[in-house]
């Protein structure tokens, strides 16, 4: 009997210890009029060191805590941030940035050396930055990062404390967009040199130079940002604090929003559950915005019968995109009949061909069958349509399977795999038709087109290569006339949309719900959110 009492007693003790540990802090979340924003980040960030970050969660935090040479403004165009003045040489290969008087959160001045240090640190192979290739536009950067050249030869130089000179490998008209990207953010070199682990936790050594500073980081639990009083543009910032919880369950976060535990739920910080989209839309609370991303099916152009361009055309034309976005995705997505999102080529809202053009599809099919020496579509081998395991992808694939069967009489088998397995199969060419998506890193068409430049390029997957297409892209790199360059890229896209190694399905959107009095969260064309201008009314 005594022993059992002991067991019971210890359980009671354990519980009371817990109660004691938990007591004290309750009844928060009551202040409504204050400028404290509560958001949810769906996952712990990979790293809050700008040189190491390579994921959206990290980007969502860094964009608020750091300020680069430029920042994407409210109108979606890059505007000067730490750079006060930008001079571009005639050959468009040398950029001279004059820095403004700005301070780090510890009071140090932001100097040109901080940029040089940060960029070279990311390029140093021993620091294993997975996004170092974002800096390859700088002369000598790729060589230094791949061990073929020296870091000293990278084209970035601090002329003096307030002048940064950058030499590029090629004219890059979108370079001021890139300098707003997180891999290009500065790092306080004094701190980083003294403490190589400065970025691992919030604290005295975690210094930043943006609208907010990070005051608390409980890994996998929450991140707290507070307004940064040393920020050069601090009068613009109205929010006092931002608290990111880290909950990876969209249904829970939507409930939390409904229950006034969050001020906003949805992209780009986390997601709105697909099942709730329709209800929220009917209620009129769902907000959506087009972003630079394309959801497409890739064709493996080296397997029968997908090596035939007319078969690919038939398959592409026979998809009813409008009903996919209306019935399945329901987030206001735009049917895609082009590869490059409308934020880069505005006429791409219409695209290169008609959506759900069954007649043209049948015509192409007949032509393709003839070329293959077949009489009927039923003689074609069964095509496997692959996707990574996910409810929305599955529904889209089932719809497309049905469209291809009904419109063209082609038999389609569905196959799905877990994400890492799926990616591996696609990258190694072990598939026939596979779904994939691409979200732009910067707002320029080259970002989408260069995927298909080289057959063995890491993200091509289709085994497709076209000499003319490649030449246009290569030539565009040295073209300094913006209009001509834009035309070259459009011509290239026309080739891509004629050869169709990919079947575009829709252009992505961000969808979210937020408090009525929450204003000024700016979503860029790439779908990135900035809180610099946000406030509660």
């Amino acid at each position, binding site marked *: 009997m005594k022993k059992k009492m002991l067991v019971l007693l210890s359980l009671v003790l354990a519980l009371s210890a817990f109660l004691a540990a938990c007591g004290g802090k309750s009844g928060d979340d009551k202040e409504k009029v204050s400028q404290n924003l509560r958001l949810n980040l769906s996952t712990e960030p990979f790293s809050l060191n700008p040189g190491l970050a390579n994921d959206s969660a990290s980007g969502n935090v860094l964009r608020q805590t750091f300020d680069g040479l430029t920042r994407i403004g409210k109108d979606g165009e890059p505007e000067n941030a730490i750079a006060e003045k930008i001079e571009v040489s005639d050959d468009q290969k040398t950029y001279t940035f004059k820095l403004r008087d700005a301070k780090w959160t510890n009071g140090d001045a932001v100097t040109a050396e901080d940029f040089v240090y940060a960029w070279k640190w990311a390029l140093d*192979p021993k620091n294993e930055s997975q996004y170092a290739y974002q800096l390859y536009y700088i002369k000598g950067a790729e060589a230094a990062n791949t061990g073929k050249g020296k870091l000293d030869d990278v084209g970035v130089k601090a002329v003096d404390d307030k002048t940064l000179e950058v030499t590029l490998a090629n004219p890059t008209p979108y370079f001021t967009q890139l300098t707003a990207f997180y891999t290009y953010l500065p790092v306080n070199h004094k701190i980083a040199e003294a403490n190589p682990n400065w970025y691992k936790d919030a604290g005295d050594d975690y210094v930043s130079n943006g609208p907010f500073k990070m005051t608390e980081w409980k890994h996998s639990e929450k991140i707290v940002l507070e307004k940064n009083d040393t920020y050069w543009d601090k009068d613009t910032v109205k929010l006092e604090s931002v608290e990111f919880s880290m909950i990876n369950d969209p249904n829970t976060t939507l409930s939390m929003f409904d229950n006034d535990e969050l001020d906003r739920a949805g992209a780009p910080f986390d997601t709105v559950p697909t099942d709730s989209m329709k209800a929220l839309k009917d209620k009129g609370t769902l907000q959506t915005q087009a972003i630079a991303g394309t959801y497409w099916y890739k064709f493996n152009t080296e397997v029968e019968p997908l090596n035939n361009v007319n078969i690919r055309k038939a398959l592409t034309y026979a998809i009813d995109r409008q009903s996919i976005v209306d019935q399945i995705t329901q987030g206001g997505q735009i049917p895609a009949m082009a590869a490059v999102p409308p934020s880069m080529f505005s006429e791409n809202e219409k695209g290169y061909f008609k959506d759900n053009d069954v007649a043209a599809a049948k015509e192409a099919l007949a032509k393709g069958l003839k070329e293959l020496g077949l009489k009927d579509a039923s003689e074609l081998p069964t095509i496997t349509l692959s996707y990574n395991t996910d409810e929305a992808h599955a529904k889209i694939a089932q719809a497309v399977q049905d469209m291809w069967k009904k419109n063209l009489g082609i038999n389609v088998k569905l196959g799905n795999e877990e994400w890492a397995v799926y990616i591996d199969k696609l990258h190694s060419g072990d598939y026939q038709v596979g779904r994939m998506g691409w979200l732009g890193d910067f707002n320029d068409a080259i970002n989408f087109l260069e995927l298909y430049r080289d057959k063995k390029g890491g993200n091509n997957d289709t085994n497709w290569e076209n000499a003319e297409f490649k030449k246009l892209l290569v030539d565009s790199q040295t073209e300094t006339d913006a209009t001509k360059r834009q035309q070259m890229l459009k011509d290239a896209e026309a080739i891509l949309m004629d050869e169709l190694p990919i079947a575009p399905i829709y252009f992505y959107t961000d969808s979210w719900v937020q408090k009525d009095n929450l204003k000024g969260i700016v979503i860029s064309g790439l779908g990135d959110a900035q809180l610099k201008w946000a406030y509660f009314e």
Partner: protein
Amino acid sequence: MIKYLTRRLLFMILSLLLIITATFFFMRLAPGNPFTSEKQLPPEIEANLNEHYGLNDPWYVQYGDYLLRIVQWDFGPSFKYKSQTVNDLINEGFPVSLVLGLEAIFIALAVGVTLGIIAALKHNKWQDYLAMIIAVFGISVPSFIMAAFLQYIFAIKLGWFPVARWGTFSQSVLPAIALAAGPTAFIARLTRSSMLEVLSNDYIKTARAKGLGELVITVKHTIRNAILPVVSYMGPLSAGVVTGSFVIEKIFGIPGLGAHFVKSIGNRDYTVIMGVTVFYSIILLVSVLLVDILYGLIDPRIKLAGGKKGE
């Protein structure tokens, strides 16, 4: 007793070694690697990363290195979280899961045993039926449905508790109940059936014949024997509950260890997969050992040193 313990410990180490070996090699068989991503890395960068993490070494070198590090309780860096080592993940996640788990076990035991005893004592009366209906619900409703249901009723409709997150006692109530529901029901059924069995024994009749009170018979003679199956269920239950339930932790946004079990596999975060598996195995092995020792304390008929359990 000491001989028995040494032997058990040896077997534990052997099982652990088997678990480590199997996990290590099966994990590597899965396609993809920690750097697999939608936007494929330039090959030079990937090669550099593989080199840094020792993924280019022959398997026996990697395996040997890993065993050496485990002995020093060093699980290595995480591939997916640059700011934390696997030891950090465990040190921060486990206490959270432990508190949640203990709370759930406390609820499960208190409610489960009580329900079971009532059901057995009022055999085939309405109390019995009611208790068993509750138990059937507890077992058959999946925990994620239970969790969503609790959130809806007690957080959104009644506003008694917050929907999610972790840190205060009120935030822990709903997840603990959701986590305890299944085990509570199981314990109730277990207690009921073994109580019924014990109640039909001769010595209970003897006790009754002696004129002992119903309370003394129940507490002193019946429960003590009837509780044994519950105790043996406690081993795996506490290991499972204490290391965290993935589903519950995900739904309630709790930063425990459970989430890492599943997420690390999707991420191919090799070191986290290994670290969490090893840690979980140790907890499981130790709790099974503790249960066996507890047996001897509750039921003196079971002699540990005899080599065979008297079940």
